[in-house]
């Protein structure tokens, strides 16, 4: 028994404690989880909940666009479809959140498959523009039937996610952890258990070669759409039940761009980048509200920060930081702390131009 624990601790030491980015991720999630113990002010909890929801949303965009290469500029569609379906089920049939959110997410998967069908014929910029069209079409439909869908004002009176805001926080936190973990594993190209990560990257890099190697690219592209739509849907359902109102603002162009902004700000094609993007930009914007004048200039500041950061770190802030603190061993491909001179596993020289060793 002791040996078993020792084995696990050893594994933990090698796989987590020696890799700075994973240590940072661990500390980050612990801090986020422990924050409600120190402050329970509604504003802080609100920021935590919304950041968690948006993190799932941005990561699901990153899975589809960053990893599979199917750039989607209308990702708000999946978010809003689930939100609306959850709201309608809740208002008309009285289902609770534990039922409406999964049903809504499954409907989002169906919508994802419908949107995925054009993706089979289109590529690149053409595809991005077609996906941009779908949320706008849905907005038009919502505005034509205002009696059923609430029109411009939206649906209100949706029941709460859970009785108190504190439990809301932890529900969103746990769901966020699981969703991000599942999506991280699904897109992990070095994984020995699932091959989706490798296949997704192959499709992004060169679809024809992937098909030539015997990969059913149609199946995997539709899989990427379904998974991405499912998780975006989970986020949308929780959003509707948390805010207790669902309006067409989530179908706007700006909301779909938000996912793209967050993911590219943090680093595209890396799941952690989207999380970093959301947890830096979103609280920054919300905290500005508390300062005098902050509410007026926060939009200007947001745009300026976005432009300046991307001008100096076009790969994204998450990737930039990671490059500073980590270095990959050229021989065994293990990750090392950047200040090491020799690899911790195979003792190979890490930098070729390093004269001192």
């Amino acid at each position, binding site marked *: 028994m002791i040996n078993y624990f020792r084995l696990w601790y050893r594994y933990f030491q090698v796989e987590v404690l020696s890799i700075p980015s994973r240590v940072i991720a661990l500390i980050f999630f612990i801090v986020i989880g422990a924050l409600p113990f120190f402050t329970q002010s509604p504003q802080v909890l609100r920021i935590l909940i919304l950041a968690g929801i948006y993190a799932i949303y941005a990561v699901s965009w990153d899975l589809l666009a960053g990893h599979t290469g199917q750039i989607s500029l209308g990702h708000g569609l999946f978010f809003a479809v689930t939100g609306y379906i959850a709201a309608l089920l809740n208002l008309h049939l009285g289902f609770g959140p534990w039922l409406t959110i999964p049903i809504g997410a499954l409907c989002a998967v169906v919508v994802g498959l419908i949107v995925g069908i054009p993706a089979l014929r289109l590529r690149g910029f053409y595809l991005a523009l077609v996906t941009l069209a779908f949320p706008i079409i849905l907005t038009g439909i919502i505005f034509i039937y205002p009696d059923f869908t609430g029109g411009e004002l939206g649906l209100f009176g949706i029941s709460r996610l859970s009785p108190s805001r504190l439990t809301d926080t932890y529900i969103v936190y746990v769901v966020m952890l699981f969703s991000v973990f599942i999506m991280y594993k699904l897109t992990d190209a070095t994984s020995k258990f699932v091959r989706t990560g490798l296949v997704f990257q192959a499709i992004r890099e060169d679809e024809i070669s992937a098909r030539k190697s015997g990969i059913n690219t149609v199946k995997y592209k539709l899989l990427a759409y379904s998974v991405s739509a499912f998780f975006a849907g989970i986020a949308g359902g929780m959003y509707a039940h948390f805010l207790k109102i669902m309006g067409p603002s989530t179908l*706007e162009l700006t909301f779909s761009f938000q996912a793209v902004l967050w993911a590219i700000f943090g680093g595209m094609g890396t799941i952690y980048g989207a999380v970093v993007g959301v947890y830096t930009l979103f609280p920054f914007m919300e905290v500005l509200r508390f300062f005098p004048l902050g509410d007026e200039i926060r939009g200007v500041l947001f745009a300026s920060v976005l432009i300046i950061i991307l001008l100096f770190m076009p790969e994204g802030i998450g990737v930039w930081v990671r490059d500073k603190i980590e270095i990959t061993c050229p021989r065994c491909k293990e990750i090392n702390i950047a200040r090491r001179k020799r690899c911790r596993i195979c003792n190979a020289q890490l930098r070729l131009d390093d004269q001192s060793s």
Partner: protein
Amino acid sequence: MAGGSDAGCWGKFLAGSAGGVRFKEIGGKLIVLFAIFINGLLYGGTYALLAVGFALVFGVAKIVNMAHTGFYMMSAYLIFIGVSVLGYPLIVAVLLTVVGAGLIGVIAYRLFLDRIKEHETAVMIVSVGLALLIQELLLLFFGGHYKAIPPFIHGFITISDQQVSYQSILAIVVSAVALLVVWFLLSKTMLGIAIRAAAEDREAASLMGFNVGRISMIIMGISVVLAAVASSVAASIFTIFPTMWLHPLVIVLAAVILGGLGSIKGSVIGALILGFAESIVVLTVPKGGYLGGVVSLCIMIVILMIRPEGLFGITFEEERL
């Protein structure tokens, strides 16, 4: 959300702007057809000016410039400043705006877009950031209220019981002239040859001695000037407000895709198709104001399903980079 303040900017954009033709009652079918024709030309011409600028920047500089309609909005506000705040005559304000907007476009290109041109997604997001910056600055200084700028010519002409305002006729004529000027520039001048060469193959053009970087900068200036011209004639017909860039952006992207990326002729035709579609829907279908954009996008999707490369686009089968 940074720009999500106005939930119904779609409907309001169209509902607030019934176009250049005001008809009292729908009498006969002919009158509606005439109104559709004039409004289609008006929308189509404005969108074509914007789409050509967008397509030129994409073709030459390989930048997806999401801020393009942001510059269109910025020019409308510059004219508004010139006329209402500084009190210049309209024509002076428009001339100053066209020059100033071109300069701002070139400066924005040099400062922001040129530096990270290699990172395609980052440059797209920076251009979205630019558009948001313009929007938020306008929101900060002018608030979210609807503004109007005066037309060049007041009054209207009555053709078969239809009141057609002189301004909309002027807008159509100016759009057509501007498009002709662009066509002349591209096909008959040395600069046009350089632009087309750079659009065709950047490396080859660069080897032949063209300064591709400078051509990209000039093309950015031209595209923003076209946007400024579009806003100078159309902005007095449409109302102006800080989220007015979203609707034209979608239509312009749809038109460019519809016509085929990289084809100037295609983007003009795409813009005209979408302009007429929008005008038909707005004038004939009940609640059409909400549906104008929707129908345009449905047309785009259907055409792309049949021809994935757009109407005039050229792609080699299974193209590889």
